């Protein structure tokens, strides 16, 4: 679920967040005019194939069954009920309207939502799309024998009933504020024999949808071929121009970017923020490519400060358990230098744990103030030794600082942070680890899960709503992994009952203003307690060939959803 923002090919693997962001469309982006690059007035040309380099292959293209980043492009074939805009609002796609309390779509108690479906929608094989399909999708999610990976928004769904062909009624166990994020993928009931659908099912690999394109072929390690849906239900209103889109799997992200600049590909899924300086330069040098940047914040590079003593939740971390220490680290890091010197400006300051979407709360990043940092440590009794490193009661302020190995950009700013902290008397040793060691489960001795770390760094976050991927709740006490709770997802082993209460209430509040206020309170608390420090928020961007027209970034996933309108320059 981490977003990239670095340049080594290894880091390409880090967009998998997208994947996981099932519930919702992904990759932050900005509102913006549609039809960028539409310079001609002429009728858009029909025909031709867009060739997209895909730097990270998914093993299946149905996000309901696969959480690797590539699978999220499935919306070219699989349409959702609603699609999110960058500000967190939604537009109906397969739904006829947005349900609300006013139009009777949402019951007063917030526990029943009625989805009215659009008329005349057909699956790409010609069969009609009905409420039965919606219900079936939920039945698959519910079936313990299916291997579906539903987003957490489904946890609150109790049942789905078919009122008539065009109407589905969803009952929730608690008010579910995120009902519009449900049903981002719908399964065609007529393609299944039972609800026990597993990853091996052909529909889990190449799903049939109602969308503008149809999956035709998936050659593992080679290419994924989509053709135009010749019977697209909305062809008259919003015609599909391309004959098809081919995703060529090119695992070496650097080579893919270079080949893209030479015109071998029409776009790259995905460019990292580390590629953006080069791409903008290439565009300015006259290469036939377009580049656009998102304006909103996207995934954040976090420093996780371990709040347990080597996984023991009954004792605080000997060094990081001291609030003054955490405050000093926060004040002691020159984030602006990281952004300007290492990221060439392609990053944003952020201090909020809820930084994006409708519930976004602005919390300024801590200022760079080594004097105040030193003062805080002095006052807390951390005394400098002869080697300049502080200690208190015989505990030395020495910390391991770890992230995934092999990422040169990250290593650069790790060194900046190391120097920053050295200046305030904290000794930091960089000791990076392979990703599976860092993120492994509790049983696999994963460092984060076991609490076997001091400071770990990774890119994490959510996309539209703090409920996505359970973002808000992974910081709750119950998510601390331990022997008795090996599935815990906590990244910091932090526990604060006040935070827990706030996000719990927000998770079942259907009143937008109330929710926003609760998340704002939680974000303030988080920033005060500092179980994790945000280093920067990635700047996301997209690049495409000038021969590709009709590209826009109207929706939350950047340019990708606009593929519907893409065409090739005459």
């Amino acid at each position, binding site marked *: 679920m981490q977003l990239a923002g670095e340049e080594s090919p290894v880091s390409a693997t880090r967009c998998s967040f997208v994947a996981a962001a099932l519930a919702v469309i992904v990759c932050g982006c900005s509102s913006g005019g549609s039809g960028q690059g539409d310079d001609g007035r002429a009728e858009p040309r029909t025909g031709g194939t867009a060739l997209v380099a895909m730097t990270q292959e998914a093993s299946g293209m149905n996000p309901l069954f696969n959480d*690797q980043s590539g699978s999220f492009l499935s919306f070219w074939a699989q349409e959702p009920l609603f699609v999110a805009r960058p500000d967190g609002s939604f537009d109906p796609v397969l739904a006829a309207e947005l349900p609300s309390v006013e139009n009777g779509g949402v019951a007063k108690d917030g526990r029943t939502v009625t989805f009215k479906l659009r008329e005349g929608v057909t699956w790409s094989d010609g069969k009609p799309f009905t409420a039965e399909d919606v219900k079936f999708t939920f039945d698959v999610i519910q079936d313990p024998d299916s291997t579906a990976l539903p987003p957490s928004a489904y946890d609150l769904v109790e049942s789905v009933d078919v009122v008539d062909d065009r109407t589905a009624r969803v009952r929730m166990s608690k008010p579910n504020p995120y009902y519009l994020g449900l049903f981002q993928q719908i399964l065609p009931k007529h393609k299944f024999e039972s609800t026990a659908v597993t990853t*091996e099912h052909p529909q889990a690999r190449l799903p049939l949808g109602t969308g503008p394109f149809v999956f035709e072929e998936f050659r*593992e390690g080679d290419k994924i071929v989509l053709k135009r849906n010749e019977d697209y239900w909305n062809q008259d209103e919003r015609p599909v121009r391309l004959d098809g889109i081919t995703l060529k799997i090119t695992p070496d992200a650097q080579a893919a970017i270079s080949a893209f600049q030479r015109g071998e590909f029409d776009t790259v899924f995905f460019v990292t923020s580390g590629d953006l300086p080069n791409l903008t330069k290439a565009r300015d040098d006259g290469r036939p490519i377009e580049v656009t940047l998102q304006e909103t914040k996207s995934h954040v590079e976090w420093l996780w400060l371990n709040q347990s003593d080597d996984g023991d939740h009954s004792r605080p971390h000997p060094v990081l358990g001291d609030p003054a220490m955490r405050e000093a680290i926060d004040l002691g890091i020159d984030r602006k230098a990281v952004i300007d010197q290492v990221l060439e400006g392609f990053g944003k300051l952020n201090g909020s744990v809820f930084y994006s979407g409708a519930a976004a709360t602005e919390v300024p990043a801590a200022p760079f103030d080594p004097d105040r940092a030193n003062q805080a440590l002095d006052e807390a009794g951390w005394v400098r030794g002869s080697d300049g490193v502080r200690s208190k009661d015989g505990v030395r302020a020495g910390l391991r600082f770890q992230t995934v190995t092999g990422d040169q950009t990250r290593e650069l700013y790790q060194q900046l942070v190391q120097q920053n902290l050295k200046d305030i008397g904290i000794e930091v040793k960089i000791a990076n680890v392979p990703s599976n060691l860092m993120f492994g489960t509790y*049983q696999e001795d994963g460092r984060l899960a076991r609490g076997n770390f001091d400071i770990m760094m990774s890119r994490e976050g959510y996309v539209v709503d703090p409920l996505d991927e359970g973002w808000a709740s992974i910081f709750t006490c119950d998510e601390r992994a331990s022997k008795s709770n090996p*599935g815990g997802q906590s990244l910091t082993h932090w526990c604060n009952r006040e935070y827990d209460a706030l996000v719990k209430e927000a998770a079942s509040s259907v009143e937008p203003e109330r929710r926003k206020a609760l998340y704002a309170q939680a974000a303030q608390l988080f920033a005060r307690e500092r179980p994790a420090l945000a280093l920067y928020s990635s700047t996301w961007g997209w690049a495409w060939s000038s021969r590709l027209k009709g590209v826009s970034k109207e929706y939350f996933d950047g340019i990708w959803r606009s593929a519907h309108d893409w065409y090739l320059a005459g």
Partner: protein
Amino acid sequence: MGSYVIRRSLQAIPLLIGISVVLFLMLQMTPGGPLASSEAGGGRATAERTERLREEFGLDDPLPVQYVNWAGGMVRGDWGTSYNTGRPVIDTIVDRLPTTLLLTGLAFVVALAIALPVGIFAATRQYSTFDYVSSGLSFVGVATPSFWFGLMLLFLFSFELGWLPSSGLEDLREQHLGLAAVWDRVSHLIMPVAVLALIATAQLTRYVRDSMLEVLHQDYVRTARGSGLPERSVVVRHAFRNAAIPMVTIAVLMIPELFLGAVITESIFAIPGMGRLFIESAELRDYPVLLGILTIAALLVVLANLVADVLYGLIDPRISYG
């Protein structure tokens, strides 16, 4: 001869079992496991999901049980299913094998086609400029890391000059016909084959030259020359035939080496073969696929040895297999 082949094949069985045990255990010993929710794997695996997968893949069984299950399946032709895709391993490998065989085969042919004439010519003109230059180049070739060579080729011919496509085996934007289709395929193959063949060519050239030199200084060659045979016939018929014997071993054993070289080449040029599959599976700790590929590689080594020994007998009638 026939009984020799059978005997050698039978001897290979305990060897293969030994290799498979070592492979199996080594994979188990690598840190992290197939269910690590790595950044590559994406997503925070839930406890239930991990539990379900552990059960499905039998990861909680004791190691010997896991080994016997796996090895038994291999013998029966059931190579297990990929942790990653859920597809049968054998299907995945069958999909990828032809591409790698094509690359390896072409590289082998290219290596032979260059190494034989160059090596022979260099040997017959020892200490000539040609000899020095070819020796120098083959040392450079052996010493060049193939990933670096591949990247340099890419940089020069794809990114700077734009003459050759950088990835894949075919143009995905449009279909070509006739000669254009041939060029489409050839242009995609030039760089990968060059990278794969580089080290093999360099090594083979050295071996050809050295074994030719050894033979050329022997008495029977001098006799042949003395009896007035044309130089061409001396070199090709008398010297080369004898020099070829040790070369056969080297050349045949080079096949598994080329096969493994495909790991790097296929990754650089985004070619969907076994090498790429190996890297992807290693990253994802997809043990069933890894074991399948490694078993094929082990088989290939054992088989290549056997073939080399048999070829000996065919080329050199003096060797008999009792």
